[in-house]
Structure formats: C-alpha cells, structure tokens
C-alpha cells in the first residue's frame, strides 16, 4: 500500500504535505510522532475513512479494519450489547467478552465501566470483526501494564500475518506489537 499525499488540510491548517508513505503488505508498521503531527489523519487516509485530501492511495485494502483511538462504544447500553452489535451470534460475543477478562461485566452499562475496561471492550469488539488489513490508533490507551501485554498477545495472534498499522507514543508498545517498520512524522 502506498499513500502519496500532496496536501491534507483541516480548515486553514496543513496537516500533511508532499509526503509518500509505503506500508509493506503483511508487515507490522508503527506510526510515531508528536501530538498534532497527523498520525491519526494518515491512518484514516490509509484505512479509507478520509478521502478529502489531495493525493492518492495505491493498492488500498479491500476490507480495512480500524480500532479507533476513542472507544466509540454506545454508552447507555450494556457491554455485551456493544459486542452483539457486530457479533454473528451471542456465543461469540460472550466468548470475546470472556477473553477480554470482562466475563462478569457483560450486563453492566458502558457508562459503569472504567477507562481500562472500556478499552478492553473496544478491542474485544474489534477482534470480532474481519478485515484484510488492521489499523490500530493507540491500541493500549488507558490500559495498565498487565492488560497491555495481554492485549498485545491477543492482537498479535488475531493479526495472523495480515498487514497491521498502528499508532503509538510508547517504545514498549512498539516492541510489544513487534513492529517491522516505523513511520516517523515530524
């Protein structure tokens, strides 16, 4: 996959200009850079969620799967309902909840969950879906060290050789997910 971005603006601010990004197929690529450098914007362009830019994306994935930086959970319904929204059946949703260590929290409303639990739930929902390339925006946000390692193991297993692109600020996260390449934004 290759993104050639001549210009991407938000209002009057140019976020990315005259840059080419190569994402090797089947490899794990980390995007790093300071806040406001355009990491999320680049990921959204690569995943096909943002098409309002000057430039092009060659060989984009047919079925991109993205883990958003914000959890994007439905607050006033239960944890299990958030998984049922994407799961093919109740059993797989319950299994995903259990794998995420939230077996006892399925009936709780999302608003009752802690920040870490919400992130685990968002990752569980992500892993119920299918795609040919995985895009993860700060996947371990709000997770403690133990949960972070557990999530990294499960995400690596879920990846199963597919192209993965993730954003992180943390050197340890980059090592945990075993990044093959790094794109550093200024």
């Amino acid at each position, binding site marked *: 996959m290759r993104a050639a971005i001549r210009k991407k603006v938000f209002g009057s601010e140019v976020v990315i200009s005259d840059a080419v990004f190569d994402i090797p197929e089947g490899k794990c690529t980390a995007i790093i850079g300071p806040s406001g450098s355009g990491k999320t914007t680049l990921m959204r362009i690569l995943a096909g969620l943002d098409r309002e830019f000057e430039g092009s994306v060659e060989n984009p994935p047919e079925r*991109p799967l993205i883990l*958003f930086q*914000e959890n*994007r959970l439905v607050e006033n319904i239960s944890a299990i309902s958030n998984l*049922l*929204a*994407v799961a093919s059946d109740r059993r797989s949703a319950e299994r995903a909840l259990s794998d995420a260590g939230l077996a006892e929290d399925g009936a709780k409303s999302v608003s009752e969950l802690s920040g870490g639990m919400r992130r685990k739930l968002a990752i569980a929902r992500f892993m119920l879906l299918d795609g040919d390339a995985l895009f993860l925006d700060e996947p371990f946000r709000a997770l403690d060290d133990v949960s972070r390692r557990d999530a990294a193991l499960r995400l690596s297993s879920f990846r199963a050789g597919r192209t993965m692109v993730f954003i992180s600020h943390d050197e340890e996260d980059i090592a945990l997910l075993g990044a093959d390449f790094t794109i550093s934004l200024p």
Partner: protein
Amino acid sequence: MISTLSSRKYKAAAIVFWIAIWWIASIMIGEDLFLPSPFSVVERLAALMQESQFWMSAAFTLSRILIGFMLSLAAALAAAYLSSCFGWFRILMDPLVRIVRATPVASIVILALVWVSSRNLSALISALMVFPIVYTNVLKGIDETPRELVEMADAYHIRLMKRLRYIYIPSVLPYFLSSLSIALGLAWKSGIAAEVIGLPDGSIGERVYEAKIYLSTPDLFAWTVTIVILAFLFERLFLLLSTKLAGRMMR
C-alpha cells in the same frame, strides 16, 4: 435529596392539598351548578360507573384515541427515519409539520368533519396532533446520534437492523420517551375536543357536551375526572411498555 418514598408522599400530599382547596371553594360558593364538591363528583362518578353506557363511552373514546395514536406513532417514526436518510424528504415534511403544529385544533376539527365521519374524528385529530411532536423529537434524536458512532457503524459494516437496535434506538430513546409523554396528553385533549365538536354517538365527548347542555356540572366534572384518569393510565402504560420494549431490544 428527596427519596422516592418521600417524593411519593409529597406528591400525594399535593393532590390532597388541591382537593382540599377545591372542597373549600365549593363550600364557599355553595352551589353545585357552579362548582360541585369533590364528594358529589365522586358520588356522581360512582353512579355513572354503574351504567353500561359509561363503559361503552369510555371504550369508544379510548379505542379511537388509541388507534389514532398508534397510527400516528408508526407514521412519525417512519417519516423521521426517512427524513434522516433523505434530505429532500426532510424538506418536503417541514412545511407540513409546521402547518399542523401551528393550526388550532378547532380549525382542524371543523375542516376534518368535512372529510371524515364524526365517529372516526377523534382518531384523525389525535393522530394529527401527535405526529409533529413525535416526528420532530425522534428526528432530533437521530440527528443527535454521535457522528463517531455512525462512522464506527459504517466502518464495521453494521447492518441496518443492528444499527437501529444498538446505535439509533439508544440515542433516540430519551427523545422518543419525552415526546411520548407530551403526545399522549395531547392525544387525549385533542381527541376529546374533537368529540365535543363532532358529537359522535356514544363517545365521552358527547356525554361531556350533554352534561354542559343540561347544566349538570357534577356530570361534567365526573367525566372530566374519568378522562384525566384514563389519560394518566394510558400514559403510564405506554411509557412502561415503551421502556420495557426498548430495554429488551437493546439487551
């Protein structure tokens, strides 16, 4: 903070307070024709309840208002959904909703009498009064659905039924329930007003009108109390069912 039990006690006390005021006012006036006492109204209501005609009138009006309300609810939900999907449909609906909302009930009733028989008038009027309230609120609820969730649903290819169930209903529900509470009260008020003007045989509206013609103020009050109780029960039942149904759907 007032507990639920204390809150109920205060509410009951408030009702007792206003009934006491009514009673004192009726003693001061001293004439049932102008203001019957609460006791004579209850007495008259008890007597009316012995008559089969009372229950038939209540059933007649209740069924018409229920039909009008349900049809309007279905139409408003469908229209709100279509308006959220198609800009042209929203533009098309806008003047219609504004006109219906601004037109006085009496004008619509008199105009509607030209088109439909008086027997079904209350159903039509209730439906017309309910539609703009439910439509506007549900559409606002859909519009207020967080864009991030809609984008998530698009990115995850969540199908329409699941999208409705897990994304839109949780977002729309508070708006829907709030509109339901207003619309239920209005359905009764407008439905009864339509019956009082159209005078369909065997309706509560006809009985209210007769009470007025024969200067039977206790009857008028007894029927009014009946309407208030029916409207209250109708509202409670509907809100309970809606909340339960929505809760079950989102589970």
